[in-house]
């Protein structure tokens, strides 16, 4: 199979979380956002690893930003959504929408 990069489920979620957080953010808000939206506990290790993988694929770029004055913390790495990442999100959404089109779960559940 040619190495066509498919967006995995968790990668999809992480990219979406970044998009929700104005396109640029760092690990912690992503973890919190995911937990809040999905209602599940998210391993920070998974987010940590996924962010790096997405960066390697060119979906994200990163830079080190100084700590926000008046807040706890140290300099942290900010991740920004790149055009390739946006494209991947769009593609994934289309794929899902195509799959969803015409599915009537209520009928299946009833039968």
């Amino acid at each position, binding site marked *: 199979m040619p190495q066509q990069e498919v967006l*995995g*489920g*968790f*990668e999809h*979620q992480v990219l979406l979380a970044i998009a929700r957080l104005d396109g640029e953010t*760092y*690990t*912690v808000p992503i*973890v*919190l956002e995911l937990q809040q939206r999905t209602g*599940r506990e998210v*391993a*920070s*290790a*998974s987010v*940590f*690893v*996924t962010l*790096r*993988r997405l960066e390697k694929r060119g979906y994200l770029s990163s830079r080190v930003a100084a*700590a926000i*004055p*008046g*807040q*706890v*913390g*140290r*300099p*942290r*790495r900010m991740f920004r959504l790149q055009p390739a990442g946006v494209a991947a999100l769009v593609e994934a959404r289309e794929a899902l929408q195509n799959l969803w089109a015409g599915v009537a779960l209520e009928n299946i559940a009833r039968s």
Partner: protein
Amino acid sequence: MKNSASPLPGLYTWFIRLGLSPWLTARERADLTADVEELRHAYRRTLGSRGLSRYTWRQLLQYPIRLTANQGDRSTMDSVWQDCRYAARMLIKNPGFTGIAVLVLAVGIGANTATFTLMNALLLKPIVAEAPHELVALYSKNLKLPDSFRPISYPNFEDIRELNTTFSDVLAHDLRTAGLREGDVTNRVFAEIVSHNYFDTFGVAPFRGRFFTPAEEVPDSNEPVVVVSYEFWRQRGEDPDLVGKSINVGGQDLTVIGITPRYFTGRIAILSASVYVPLGMERLVSGFGGSTGSSLAERNNHRLFLVGRLLPGVSMEDADARLAALASRMEESFPEINESQTIIVGPLSRLGISTEPSDGDGLGLVAALMLGMTGIVLLIACINLANMLLARGAARRREFAVRAAIGGGRLRILRQLLTEGLFLSLLGGAAGLVVATWANGLLAASLGEVLSNLGFTMDIVLRTEPDLRVLLATAGFCMLGTLAFGLGPAWQQSRPDVMAAIKEQTGDASGQGRGGPLGRRNLLVVSQIALSLVMLISAGLFVRASLKAANIDPGFRLDNGILVEVDTSLVGYDDAQSKDTYRRLSERLQSIPGVQAMSVAATVPFGAVSSGRDVRRAEDQPTTGGDGSEEIETVRARSNIIGAQYFEALDLPVLRGRAFTATETASDAGPKVAIIDELLAESLWPGQDPIGRFIGLGRVRDPEGGDEIEVVGLVPSISEDIFPAERRPHVYRPFGQNFQAAMNIHVRADSITDDDARAAMLQTIRREIRAVDGRLPIISLRALEDHIAESASLWLVRLGATIFSIFGALALFLAVIGVYGVKAYAVARRTREIGIRKALGATTSDTLRLILRESMLVAAAGLGVGLVLGAGVASLLASLLYEVSPYDPVAFLASTAVLALAAFVATYLPAQRAASVTPVTALRAD
């Protein structure tokens, strides 16, 4: 909150820096530190501090897994928990397998942990003192005589303490024995006499009360105060008001002023004195050689041992140089006493107090040996387990293949298998820790027993409770074990061979299971048998040595001998009272019907105490050596002080001359006389008659000639201990001319036919001694045979034999399990082949022979390798074996036979079962 106001708790940061470092780049480490800190901050309110801590750890522990796996996205799948849950399920599902595996590992890890705990207590754990590395021992060395050291007198100690520029403090002490009276029983306990700054120099504070004052230290000040050990306090009911009460030591009531801190043992490890008295009370405690009768205040009464605390930045070499300068000043001030003496320092010995520096305690070899032996046990256990895992892995091939087929990576399967291995290891390690603690408790109890057999009460501070070092070592053994037994099978089984495995119905995969005589599992069996044989041979050699030692011919008669030990100084008698007591005792005991002979003796064969003297021909003149030192030829001999009937009591003939007369043994009137044995006579006057000649004692001639002693008798040589094996020369002197307070009494009865008669005789002797003096402590009273059987050196040899037998038995046990397991599995896998053979006409016995022949070939290979290895190990053991050749044929043959038999039985059972299978059943199988 301010910037960086909440730094990470140290452990988390440490874990990120070091624990995760194999997986993280420097950049990622920095990122992660910031992330974790903020996440903790974010959850602090909702989770509470304990929940937060648990959450953080759970999150952190996932990093290594995620980072190594880093394949695909398992968004919600918590793979480490999954692995663990799965591993736990697998282990619970196979309780038989798990039980045996844990047992095998508990043995392997337990043996290692037990040994390590012991070595830790003996060699590694620092003594209880502040900055123990700064403490050094001081030795007074004679510059003219080679290797001649002496203890240090109190006035010299004071000079060193006041004038040195080397130490922040110097203490003086001597380890003695003292009688401790409790109720109407007097026990002999170890007592330290110490300078007032003894505890300060060690840097310890009293557990209760106070330590000594300078006034209490002054010689002959006789302030009735005593400090007792923590163990002493603990063993007597932890009396909260002990301080301020009085105890009776050496016949005198002393006020307890303090209790030492827990685990304090002074300068040596493990053993501690029970009571500490100030130097001012020196006369109260007798010491091994008895009181010299002279005051500690005399400069030529060399009785003390010194320990100093080096000033910061002073090395041992610096100390030697500075002390040499001090010593020459002391020599100028007191030339006749301090002539040619210098002072040197050396590291504290962990096990002994000596006048001369010791080069290690010889324990290093024993420690290395024991850890080596237990290492082999662990290795055998691991090989065993590897075998079991291989066998089981073959059964799980399809499971793994399915996992691989649906996308489980090889690393994932490997990780799963190693997780299972680690679970087993940890279970085994926990069980091993329990085994180890229990085993060491037994050892400490056994040590206490042998000390009390010697007539001593000594506090044993064998801290066998696992400390961090032991826990780390155990964890290390677990990891080592996991890798050793788990990695190989896991690596092999995680190999993706999907199609073959799924298609395969039954039988053997290529190269697995059967694999001919050199198959993987057979190699494991060979190495297991070889290693087990090494252990069995070692055990055999030690057992042989202990039997040899137990049946030693001491050169005198043991039967009908009875030994009594008493010590008049323990109840505070002076010399006149003591002599009178011994005279009355002798009369009384001799009058008992059935007693043939009785005699006092300063030291007894196989006793805790021996004494040695340098003997020379009285007529010899010293020769002056090249460096101006005077030398005179001497022979080192064991010395004993005895009564008139000593040789009758031991049933030794006087070969020439005569025994001591009653006058000589009762009073110091008359010319000085001695009896020597054949060995000494042969060394001093080869081939000549020693009777009527004169000897001198010591390495220096007495200028007044007063040390000339006439040899009046010649006796056969005897062995007084099992180490060294060869007999030593002896010199005997009469009790009357050489009094000491602590004496033993040998009694020879007419004939003791049975245990009842012996018990009755012991009872009579005890009654008679009580009748002479009800206060006199009877330290021991038993048959001579029992005395020797319970002696410390025999205990040591027996201990060696016991430990190695245990190791050997463990190895044998593991080997049998291993061989049985492998064979049972291998023949089970061959059921179909066996069925075909039988269908084609092979009989049951044909089949049995076939299987047995293959197995015994493997066993023989293992035995061959084991014999060669065993010979190598035996040559390393040679120095520890008592009177047994390291290539002792009995040990080698017996071990080989036992192992061969065990291997045969372990093979025969499964082979028999397989061979009796009917072709139909066999072909239907699977």
